[in-house]
């Protein structure tokens, strides 16, 4: 076993010896066990033992970073020297800094010890459940993994964290087939720290399998209309992360291209929308304990009742702009549910589309998006009438948030996020 605290302390000392006035490092050891299924058959069992040592030095206000995967003294000494040389090649910037603080007590989250036999049995049970309940499904690839991660963060300002976590991750990629007919592929997954539940009952796996089986006879949309786009939990995340990336991230705030750059404290969305980043939520498995800059991770609201509360800024961009940093750097997104049942939302849509998966480029800096609505269904007069193919949707991700028609009261917890379905009005849907 590696003594990660000793390795981190040695790294900080080496960075200081090379002239760093401030320094931080993370030493991580990860043990991975992974089963793979390809084309519906078990194909691979992997066992990995990975080291990672990342370090950052600030020398004369210049920053350099190095990452290696060795823990021996010779490697640490060379990496620290390289790190200082990289910093020297940079430009001075007062904004580089790390958190002040204290040493935190070690923490353990999830299930660090893998039960491999039971894990394999649950995986084979999932394969059997799918064959029995969803015979048209062909598993293109399934990757199930257990990770045990021991991590020590330490900086020169007295902060240290010592975290151990373990979890199981189940990722599926599949499509439906019947004779010569085939659906589009679809991916779903969960992470969990328990093997007490059949995997098919976790997250939205069962629903997703059933939906894809209904997509064997998709119909190309003819013409174009402006209507409602309903994003289930599985596709809502990609839209919301695009919003975050375009409007609230380090890069777009620092370069001033974010349309939200002056919108803190003002309404940017429908008042029913609350988006939080809550790594401590009980439904999040092994949520972050600390930020990339060494602060204790705290939950926060990005948008509360439609009003922009925070950007997702690092300490560096916070120091550059004078805007408060984000209280955590996780992706543990929790969206407050609405009060309408998903079935009732669909029943109330005159003409629209359920977007199971959005396949499109990143939105432009202004938020305009267009892409293919994959694994989608047409809604007409409150009923799902057919699966769709070759159908595109377009709009603006900023406008979407203001044009919310309804938020479902049901949510999906996949171990990383907790999301409802949201229906947005004013989306352009176009076909051939």
């Amino acid at each position, binding site marked *: 076993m590696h003594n990660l605290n000793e390795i981190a302390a040695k790294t900080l000392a080496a960075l200081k010896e090379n002239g760093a006035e401030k320094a931080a490092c993370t030493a991580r050891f990860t043990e991975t066990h992974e089963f793979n299924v390809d084309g519906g058959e078990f194909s691979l069992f*992997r066992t990995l033992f990975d080291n990672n040592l990342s370090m950052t030095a600030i020398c004369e206000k210049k920053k350099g970073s190095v*990452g290696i995967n060795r823990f021996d003294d010779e490697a640490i000494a060379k990496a620290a020297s390289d790190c200082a040389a990289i910093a020297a090649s940079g430009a001075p910037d007062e904004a580089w800094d790390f958190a002040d603080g204290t040493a935190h007590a070690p923490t353990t989250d999830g299930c660090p010890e893998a039960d491999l036999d039971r894990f394999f049995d649950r995986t084979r049970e999932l394969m059997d459940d799918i064959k029995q309940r969803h015979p048209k499904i062909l598993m*293109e690839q399934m990757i199930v993994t257990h990770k045990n991660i021991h991590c020590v963060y330490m900086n020169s300002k007295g902060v240290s964290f010592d975290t151990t976590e373990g979890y199981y991750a189940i990722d599926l990629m599949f*499509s439906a087939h019947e004779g010569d007919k085939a659906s589009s592929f679809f991916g779903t997954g969960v992470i969990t720290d328990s093997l007490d539940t059949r995997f098919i009952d976790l997250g939205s796996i069962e629903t997703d399998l059933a939906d894809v089986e209904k997509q064997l006879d998709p119909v190309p949309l003819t013409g174009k209309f402006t209507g409602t786009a309903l994003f289930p939990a599985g596709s809502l995340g990609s839209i919301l992360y695009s919003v975050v990336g375009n409007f609230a991230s380090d890069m777009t705030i620092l370069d001033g291209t974010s349309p939200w750059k002056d919108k803190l404290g003002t309404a940017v969305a429908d008042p029913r929308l609350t988006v939080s980043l809550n790594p401590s939520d009980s439904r999040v498995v092994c949520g972050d304990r600390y930020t990339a800059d060494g602060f204790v991770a705290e939950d926060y609201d990005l948008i509360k009742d439609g009003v922009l509360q925070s950007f997702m800024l690092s300490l560096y961009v916070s120091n550059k702009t004078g805007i408060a940093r984000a209280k955590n750097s996780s992706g543990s997104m929790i969206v407050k549910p609405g009060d309408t049942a998903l079935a009732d939302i669909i029943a109330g849509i005159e003409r629209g589309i359920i977007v199971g998966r959005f*396949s499109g480029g990143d939105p432009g800096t202004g938020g305009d998006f267009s892409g293919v609505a994959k694994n989608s269904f047409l809604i007409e007069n409150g009923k799902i009438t057919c699966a769709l193919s070759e159908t595109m949707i377009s709009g603006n991700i900023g406008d979407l948030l203001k044009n919310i028609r309804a938020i479902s009261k049901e949510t999906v917890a996949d171990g990383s996020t907790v999301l409802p379905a949201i229906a947005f009005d004013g989306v352009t849907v176009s076909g051939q």
Partner: protein
Amino acid sequence: MLPDILTKCRQYLPTDAHTEVRVQKNRSCRVTLLSGNLTANAKSETSGVSARVYKGGVYGFSSMAECSEDAARAVLKAADENAHFMDRRVGRGKGALPTIQDGYLPLKSDISDPEQKLYADFAREIDAYIVEKYPNLASRAVIATADSLEKMLLTNDGMSGHTILPRSYMYVFLNSETTAGTPIEMFEAFGTSGTFDQNFTDPAALYGKIDALYERLMKKREGVYADAGKKTCILSGGLAGMLAHEAVGHTVEADLVLGGSVAGPNLGKVVASEKVNLTDFAHTAFGEEVPLPVYLDDEGTPAVDAPIIKDGVLVGYMNSRETAQHFGMQPTGNARAWAFSDEPLIRMRNTAIHPGTDKLEDMIASVEDGYYLIDTNNGQADTTGEFMFGVTCGYEIKNGKLGRAILDTTISGVAFEMLKTVDMVSDTVAWQSSGFCGKKQPMGVGLGGPAIRCEMMIGGR
């Protein structure tokens, strides 16, 4: 250079199961200047050893972050145990893989590891040029980046060898606003295989290309939304390369064929117009070395070209040794791994549509009402062949002449239907190699093509 720990390991290889041992080092570095702020200045180096053992139709794999004989023996033992675990629990009962050519591929030459200052200084010179010449930009970003994969491979029933594949690039992003105040962006990646000091010796060599990029940005300021629907389009060589990779290439990766891709029932059938020929090139294409040449894959198969479409007919797949056996084809050397801790997967190498005989200007002149689409920032495709690309630079074509620029949009179609509409193919191939293909692991790939004229769906607003 990696230490040779494998020569002594041959004695530990099992004789009854195909086995690979791979020692590998990945290097990367990145310098990012965001509107003059040095937001990233980092390098990384990871190395280790892995082993993979094939037993009864399943693989066992293990890796360790250490380059030593002891580590090699440890991962061999763990991989063998994993293979036996799977064989015992799954019991597919398959026999050995067919034998392939053996031998040893020696390293051609070592590569340099330039100091970080070289990247930072070059990026600063480019940034200084942009800010001085174009002070009215809303923002800009300049990124210098490089990565390399060094591999030493030992197999018990195939080729062994030692290879290095470096590549390096400069990315330039320019941002402005439309006349209506909507933010717009234009970017380009410059570079190819080779180390940074080989590819970038003089910043002034990029100035003309940056000027051209700025001109396109200014035209985009006056841009209009494309008219949504099915249109006659000229795709640039870059977009045709993306089409070759995303919309066709993935569907003919034999593991995805086994997963139900559209290429399964279409082998031997017409899937494109007779003007379309498409190959996944190993190391040489059209008389020249390709952007990211592969001579040996990570299963020990000597890399050869994989013909995919010949005169419009689907003629083959990209294979690993296992899938080649399944389909009764020859392995092509497509099984590649990104990191030492990754198992080989079927990956593209340099996938390209072959050039035709048409001139680009004649192709544009032939379009009465359509679009010339030049740059893309993103591409995705389905195993059904349905694809979409984000288009970041394009122009209207009206009565055979280029018109207004268009704002960011998306094009889509179904590959084996859309390719049947190709009726003109230009005589010049454009290659790209800066991106990463994602398929469980990242992988650097080359993609290329000539300009093609076709019918496809374009998104508007």
